């Protein structure tokens, strides 16, 4: 009956977003009067697994298997569905990461369970089971009633805080039945920029647009981001022109993000850009045009030339960081 939370690891380690999902699962479990079972797939040490108990997991299933070492949507979904049946789970929580979205969808089909994708709040259980999600690319929210007996939800990173709820957890090994047909896809190579903060998970984001004139001017954007510990992002024309990689493109047709702070430099604030960033908690806009539409969607605005303003922001950020230590 417990809430089953799939805990994704990156090279054997859990990220903050994993603790968010467990915290979220704990909040759901409390509403339903049950407990959290975390399911880890891959190769994670007991020490790392034990960390989950700090966020409310009271049972930890560990599926350690050579064939499941790298994340692979199809077999992972099978393992989760099997664990859900073994645990008689009614609610399965999966992170809405690139892999998690695919896993959640496949688990939902396997169990013929209703799927709440990209959930941004704790489900409302006062009248059925209603999830809240973004829709129309940031322009609206949808409230979705999930009516099936078993429910699958995927949770958007940064939409729920890590909450400590220390429990005592037992780690149990979970040996799934592997099916050869699940291994059609082969992972050839994983390329990860380890020195970079991943954009969907980032709490702080520094983003720049066509106002930066050319790729050679991104040094100051990166410097500001480094000082703040922020990820870098960009507008669509910037990635289209090849000034920055596509993976940095935010907006309606790029990544939708909801960091605590979004700093937009030399970005006009077109509706498609705003769609992907307007759920950021605080927005700062730097633009030389006082009529730039982005100012209407900002919390703080600075009218000025980025080439003069950003160096001041960098100096200020250095002093700010120094004063924090």
């Amino acid at each position, binding site marked *: 009956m417990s809430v089953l939370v799939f805990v994704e690891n*990156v090279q054997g380690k859990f990220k903050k977003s994993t603790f968010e999902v467990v915290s979220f699962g704990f909040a759901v479990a409390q509403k339903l009067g049950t407990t959290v079972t975390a399911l880890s797939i891959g190769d994670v040490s007991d020490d790392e697994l034990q960390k989950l108990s700090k966020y409310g997991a009271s049972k930890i299933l560990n599926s350690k298997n050579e064939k499941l070492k790298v994340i692979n*949507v*199809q077999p992972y979904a099978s393992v989760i569905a099997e664990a859900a049946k073994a645990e008689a789970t009614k609610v399965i929580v999966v992170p809405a*990461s*690139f892999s998690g*979205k*695919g896993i959640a*969808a*496949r688990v*939902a089909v*396997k169990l013929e*369970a*209703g*799927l709440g*994708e*990209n959930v941004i709040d704790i489900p409302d259980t006062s009248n059925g089971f209603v999830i809240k*999600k973004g*829709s*129309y*690319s940031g*322009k609206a929210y949808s*409230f*979705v*009633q999930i*009516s*099936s007996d078993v429910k699958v939800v995927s949770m958007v990173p940064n939409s729920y805080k890590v909450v400590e709820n220390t429990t005592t957890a037992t780690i149990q090994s979970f040996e799934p039945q592997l099916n050869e047909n699940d291994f*059609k*896809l*082969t*992972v*050839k*190579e*994983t*390329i*990860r*920029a380890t020195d*970079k903060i991943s*954009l969907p*998970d980032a709490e702080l984001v520094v983003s720049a647009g066509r106002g930066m004139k050319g790729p050679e001017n991104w040094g100051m954007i990166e410097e500001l981001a480094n000082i*703040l510990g922020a990820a870098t992002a960009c507008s669509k024309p910037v990635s289209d022109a090849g000034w920055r990689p*596509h993976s940095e*493109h935010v907006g*309606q*047709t790029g990544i939708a993000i909801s960091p*605590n*702070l979004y700093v937009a430099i030399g970005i006009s604030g077109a509706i*498609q850009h705003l769609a992907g960033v307007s759920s950021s908690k605080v*927005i700062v806009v*730097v633009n030389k045009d006082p009529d730039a539409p982005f100012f*209407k969607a900002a*919390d703080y*605005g*600075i*009218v000025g030339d980025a080439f003069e*303003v*950003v160096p*001041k*922001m960098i100096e*200020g950020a250095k002093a*700010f960081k120094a004063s924090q230590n």
Partner: protein
Amino acid sequence: MKILVCISHVPDTTAKINFTPDNKEFVSQGVTFIVNPYDEIALARAIELTDDGKGTVTTINVGDVSTEPTIRKTLAIGATDSIRVNAAPRDGYFVAKQIANIAKQNNYDIILCGRESSDHNGASIPSMIGELLGVASISSAKKLEVDGTTATLEREIEGGKEIVSTPFPFVAGASEGMAEPKIPNMRGIMSARTKPLTVVEPIEVPQLAKVISYDKPVARTSVKMIAADDAGKIWEMIREEKKVI
């Protein structure tokens, strides 16, 4: 090579989104509809992969008759033929079941979707179709190359990318980088009128999820302007006033 491309009919990216006063329905009046931007990328790649003349590209939409102009556009861009499953999409599972049902009858080598629809933002349908067909699914693919009956794809992961390969058939959600969207030319528009658009009735699917209401984000009411000379002080200000850093 036989490719199926799933097309979602969505409001234009510049459209203002409005709901009925009770917030229960989306108001489509006055809204222009387009092919979902990611689906345009999927379609463009499908056309590229069959431009040796040896393949076919079928587009499919689950929607009522109002989606036909959007489907015709995919024929104008270069699809061979189209299928419309005559039902308003209820939830992702419903849509995926309809598409998988058609796919089971036709032996497609590749099924392409967009990585996400710009209205529902589920990012789930390609994976659901993959599960229903028992084949691999790549939910967000930036590159797709084909060699014989094997495909190599580049998929997005947090902070990087992964190169994967799978035999035919498989399902993938197209993301930016896979291809440049194509614009229909005059010949395409003319020929679209005579290309086949088959309408089929939906199969029965249990309802698992249902949108019961909508809401809009609260607009930011006032922006605090800071003089350019004081730009350096902004961090302290944000810490004090918003406590996010």
